[in-house]
């Protein structure tokens, strides 16, 4: 507990982890590895803790390693019969069946071209096999996933820790900008962000905003946001 918030290096051993009272288990997240009865750190970063028994290392990383259940933004690179190859910035492309779209049947194929952006969830991501992506949830509804309208918008990449910052509930840049600008974003856990505003100028402004806030805190973001909006309005 006294370790929480400190920086750890690969090879460090953790002890005194707080287990859940019910099951007596400790949940170890990214960057931590258990070997018999000791816990090792294998990525450099800050140790974080969430009640009751969650521990993980918050590390700064650029390369994406596909993980099951994460929402990713992929680019369709190829089509092989019934499946599409989708680049999700992992070590190998993910496969995406044309049937895993809302309302798709054998007859009624989704309209997807090579180069399209798709927002989907990783159904299966194992280190030993090719990741599989789907654009529907378990009830068969798209739920915000699927092909992202390809006309317009801008896609860029950033580090994975920045993505997690953007997706955290405390992140206020998008909400603040959203109070005065109509726009749309799609943020993938694989380090890709797609932004579309009313005009190219506004899109660029939002992209610049998102890029510059990686190391800012909430107040700094607020100030930056106001400046950005003022500039856009022509002051």
């Amino acid at each position, binding site marked *: 507990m006294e370790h929480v918030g400190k920086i750890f290096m690969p090879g460090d051993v953790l002890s005194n982890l707080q*287990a859940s009272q019910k099951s*007596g*288990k*400790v*949940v*170890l*997240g*990214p960057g*931590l*590895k*258990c070997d018999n*009865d000791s*816990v090792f750190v294998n990525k450099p970063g800050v140790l*974080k803790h*969430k009640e009751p028994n*969650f521990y*993980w290392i918050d590390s700064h990383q650029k390369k994406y390693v596909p*993980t*099951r*259940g*994460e*929402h990713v*933004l992929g680019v369709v690179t190829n089509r092989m019969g019934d499946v599409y190859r989708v680049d999700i910035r992992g070590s190998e492309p993910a496969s995406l069946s044309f049937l895993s779209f809302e309302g798709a049947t054998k007859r009624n194929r989704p309209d997807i071209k090579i180069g399209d952006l798709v*927002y989907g969830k990783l159904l299966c991501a194992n280190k030993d096999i090719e990741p599989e992506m789907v654009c529907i949830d378990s009830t068969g509804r798209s*739920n*915000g996933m699927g092909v992202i309208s390809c006309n317009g918008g801008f896609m860029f990449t950033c580090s994975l820790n920045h993505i*997690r910052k953007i*997706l*955290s*509930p405390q992140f206020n840049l*998008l*909400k603040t*900008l*959203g*109070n*005065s*600008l*109509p*726009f*749309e*974003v*799609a*943020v*993938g*856990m694989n380090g890709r962000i797609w932004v*579309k505003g*009313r005009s190219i100028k506004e899109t660029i402004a939002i992209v610049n905003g998102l890029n510059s806030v990686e190391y800012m805190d909430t107040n700094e973001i607020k100030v930056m946001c106001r400046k950005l909006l003022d500039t856009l309005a022509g002051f």
Partner: protein
Amino acid sequence: MMEAQEKSKLSKNVLQMKFMRRSVVRLDEEQNAEEEKQTIDDEHWAYDIPQLKAKESKFQCEASYLPFEDLVFGRMSYKGFNKEIEKMMKEKNTEQSLAEADRREKEMAVSDDEMAERFTSLVGTVGKKFAKKRKKAEKEKVTETPQDTIDTVQTDAPSKKKKSKKKKKEFMKPNEDE
């Protein structure tokens, strides 16, 4: 064998006829028997050794950040840019606030277990109170049915309640020590 082959060659339409009913049943049975044999054969190939038990570990590993950080859904739209997404965001927000409210309520409210726990200790004291009242009531009113008198002798909870209700409905002030 030859016969069976011949039979299987009979068309569906012929087999559906009334006079063919019996042969259809027999054919079915034959097929079932064959399938059963097949399953036995499958079992034959299974290992007959006890299952390997994985060593129970104190630790559970999770590869994703999802269970750790409460991340929001990655598609967002503002000021009606994409109506569909905006609607979904609103739904998710209300869902979240509902869940939050639910959680808070659960924290505030008394759980069934706690309630039961508390009442087991209360039953005795409250019961005594009623017992006293009952005795008084018995002295005042002797015009009771015999069955009721038996009940009062036994002094069990439900009958007490019934009686108290019968007597008068009075507001019972809750304990203030909570």
